[in-house]
């Protein structure tokens, strides 16, 4: 696995905070001074691959990191940005949540030109999306691992049969 972000996490480069599942880091390539990133310690290439519990922890941490940069850097605002997929500008093959401190006239352009859509186009899209939101709002259960117990038993049996075999 050749992920430079994973390497940076492993080598603890520029990490300011870390839990079992996530880390907060100063990126090597930044949008603005004080830009911090929140990421899963485990390698996930896109947002959809990240388990719900980790996403939840990332957003909770991002909220607090936002407050921290506000206080520490005299920021007047913050942006949260996830570039999910190369079409959205994703540069590294690892999910990254950006916390970007902002000041008036800092020269950072995070705007878009709004498009005009007519009623029919909007309604078509509304229906398409509504049709597929059945699984939204349902949080994944954490996966359990019952397999381990079985393995332990098998090992025990081997040991017993082996010791039986030794008896002359």
């Amino acid at each position: 696995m050749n992920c430079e972000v994973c390497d940076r996490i492993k080598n603890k480069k520029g990490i300011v905070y870390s839990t079992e599942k996530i880390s907060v880091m100063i990126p090597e390539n930044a949008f603005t001074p004080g830009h911090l990133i929140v990421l899963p310690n485990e390698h996930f290439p896109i947002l959809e691959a990240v388990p719900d519990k980790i996403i939840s922890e990332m957003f909770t941490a991002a909220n607090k990191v936002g407050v921290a940069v506000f206080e520490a850097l005299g920021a007047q605002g913050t942006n949260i940005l996830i570039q999910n997929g190369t079409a959205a500008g994703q540069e590294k093959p690892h999910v990254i949540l950006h916390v970007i401190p902002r000041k008036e006239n800092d020269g950072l352009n995070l705007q878009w030109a709004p498009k005009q859509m007519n009623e029919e186009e909007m309604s078509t899209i509304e229906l398409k999306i509504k049709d597929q939101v059945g699984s939204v709002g349902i949080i994944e259960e954490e996966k359990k691992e019952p397999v381990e117990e079985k393995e332990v038993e098998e090992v025990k049996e081997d040991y017993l049969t082996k010791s039986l075999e030794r008896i002359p």
Partner: protein
Amino acid sequence: MEELTPEQQAQMRQQCIFCQIADGKVAAKKVYEDDKVLAVLDINPANPGHILLLPKEHIAIMPQMDDELIGYMGIVSKQLSQVLLRTLQAQGTTIFVANGVAAGQRAPHFMIHIIPRMEGDDAGLKPLEKKYSEEQILQIHQGVYEAIKRVLGDAIPPEKQPINLDQKETPKEEKPGTKEPGKKETPKESKKKASPLDDVSKFLTGQ
């Protein structure tokens, strides 16, 4: 959050267009709703299918939100992103939040933007990156360390700067006998050292 009287809350909700939408008083194209959040289509979208995900409760900016709700909104954002990829054949999604006018916040109600993206589209939100030096990274780390520790409850301290004989800067002074574990350079002290990074230090000292 301050406690408001029912009358004050009602007044606040009347003055906020997104609360009005959540309360069903103003029409909107709702694509998802549950007891905590509401997702509607933006009428001036960056791309067709641009979703605004809002808490039903009136919350102006992210720091006002409790951990559980922001965590939940993160999960729903991921799930809605997945829906956009599937239903609109989007090739990617942008998840975006603006806290404060300086960050581009235009409405007084917190929202997460979930925007479907296509290769080469003109929806922007792709800021340019500038490469940081090790020194810059250390300065940022020193600048945010205390605040991160206070807000998150824990933080990893910045590494001490190694004495580099090649540099013109004087090495750190060490008072003999008085080792103060945990004493960190303040941002002001690091600014005094020869540093070509004007914008970084200005940020750190709040200029």
